[in-house]
């Protein structure tokens, strides 16, 4: 059998290239980055207005509200992950490219996290202050959100790949992803609550980290398989 063409670009080069392309596209359309961020900020600032400014109430509900808002903001952004690629035919081109599809999918997930997950983590301290969260707890919040949003971008891409051909697939996507996202939400919110009560919280962080590693190793393959199925 003929050996692979020596001019074939390396896998690593293609991973960098697709991540760069998606980041460039996101920069050309900043609205796509700002939308989930606005949603996150709005939910987090409206909540204290609705339940009242009582200090005790806010410290109690803070971790939960911040985490639910982050989860929903990420879910909202997932729908567009493969949508534009599907519409302009570049997804088909990726499917017939000689590079491994899981690697290309991973590149898209990395770009997705850098444009939605990371900004959420970065503005979370500002919003956490609304809930009178002490500085050391804010550190824990950011760490859990960092690991949690990585999990959500990775797992969410599986759902996005499965629903890519469907019109208005957002509801179905959320339904598919929520069972996988539930552990992330529970671990994240309870870890921050434990830290706020000055109890031991390290287990939660380790568990989130383990979940992220598991997602990182499985999600690219599952996404690639899902893309092939939904593009038949």
């Amino acid at each position, binding site marked *: 059998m*003929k050996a*692979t*063409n020596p001019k074939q670009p390396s896998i690593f080069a293609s991973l960098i*290239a697709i991540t760069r*392309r998606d980041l460039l596209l996101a920069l050309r359309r900043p609205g796509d980055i700002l939308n989930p961020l606005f949603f996150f900020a709005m939910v987090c600032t409206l909540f204290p207005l609705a339940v009242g400014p009582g200090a005790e109430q806010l410290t109690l509900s803070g971790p939960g509200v911040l985490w639910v808002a982050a989860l929903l903001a990420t879910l909202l952004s997932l729908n567009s992950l493969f949508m534009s690629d599907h519409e*302009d*035919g570049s997804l088909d*081109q990726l499917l017939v*490219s000689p590079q491994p599809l899981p690697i290309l999918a991973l590149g898209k997930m990395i770009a997705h996290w850098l444009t939605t997950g990371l900004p959420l983590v970065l503005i979370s301290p500002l919003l956490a202050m609304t809930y009178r969260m002490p500085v050391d707890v804010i550190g824990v919040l950011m760490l859990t959100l960092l690991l949690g949003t990585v999990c959500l971008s990775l797992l969410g891409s599986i759902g996005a790949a499965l629903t890519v051909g469907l019109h208005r697939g957002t509801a179905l996507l959320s339904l598919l992803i929520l069972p996988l996202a539930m552990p992330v939400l529970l671990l994240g919110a309870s870890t921050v609550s434990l830290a706020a009560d000055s109890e031991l919280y390290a287990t939660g962080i380790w568990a989130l980290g383990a979940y992220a590693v598991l997602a990182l190793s499985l999600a690219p393959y599952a996404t690639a398989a899902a893309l092939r199925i939904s593009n*038949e």
Partner: protein
Amino acid sequence: MTEKLSATNLTLIRGERCLFQELDFALNPGELLLLKGQNGSGKTSLLRAIAGMLSLESGEIFWNEAPVLQQRQEFHGALVWLAHKTGLKGDLTLVENLRFEASLRPQSDNDLAVVCERVGISRLKRLPLRSLSAGQQRRVALARLVLADVPLWLLDEPFTSLDRDGRHLVTQLVEEHLTSGGMCVMAAHQDVEINATVHRVSL
């Protein structure tokens, strides 16, 4: 070993309709396979099946005598596909689009500037692709064909939205590709005059 694309006993059923059945073909270097048929007769489906994106009811497609599905990556490294949708990003410029393509697929030694001049898009290098006309975007997609260093071209209605010069250009490019030992599968609903060995399949 020289390259060869062949298929035996292909049958495709979509929904309740049988698009084609027991279809065979063999394609050697320098030859063109022309898929003819009316709209909706299954030309695009056959091309997608050849590209390995559609599972067939029966039959198998071979590249160098080995089934395509068992060597998907090698086979995809040997083809470039011009689909109905160009697969180019409207928010990126022509050069950014072609550079991304170059990071996926082996590229020929053709110079980007020379190829752009040839297909008549060199004045449009700095514009985002969405501001180009449909015909100009098709020309960018043609540049992608010429820049790829692959033996097999899959062309789905390559003459769509091109002016007369553009259509002439497609014919020329295909002839050059075939003369240099390439292969081409083309779906077209109109007559195509190409100076090479042409196998015809009517769908």
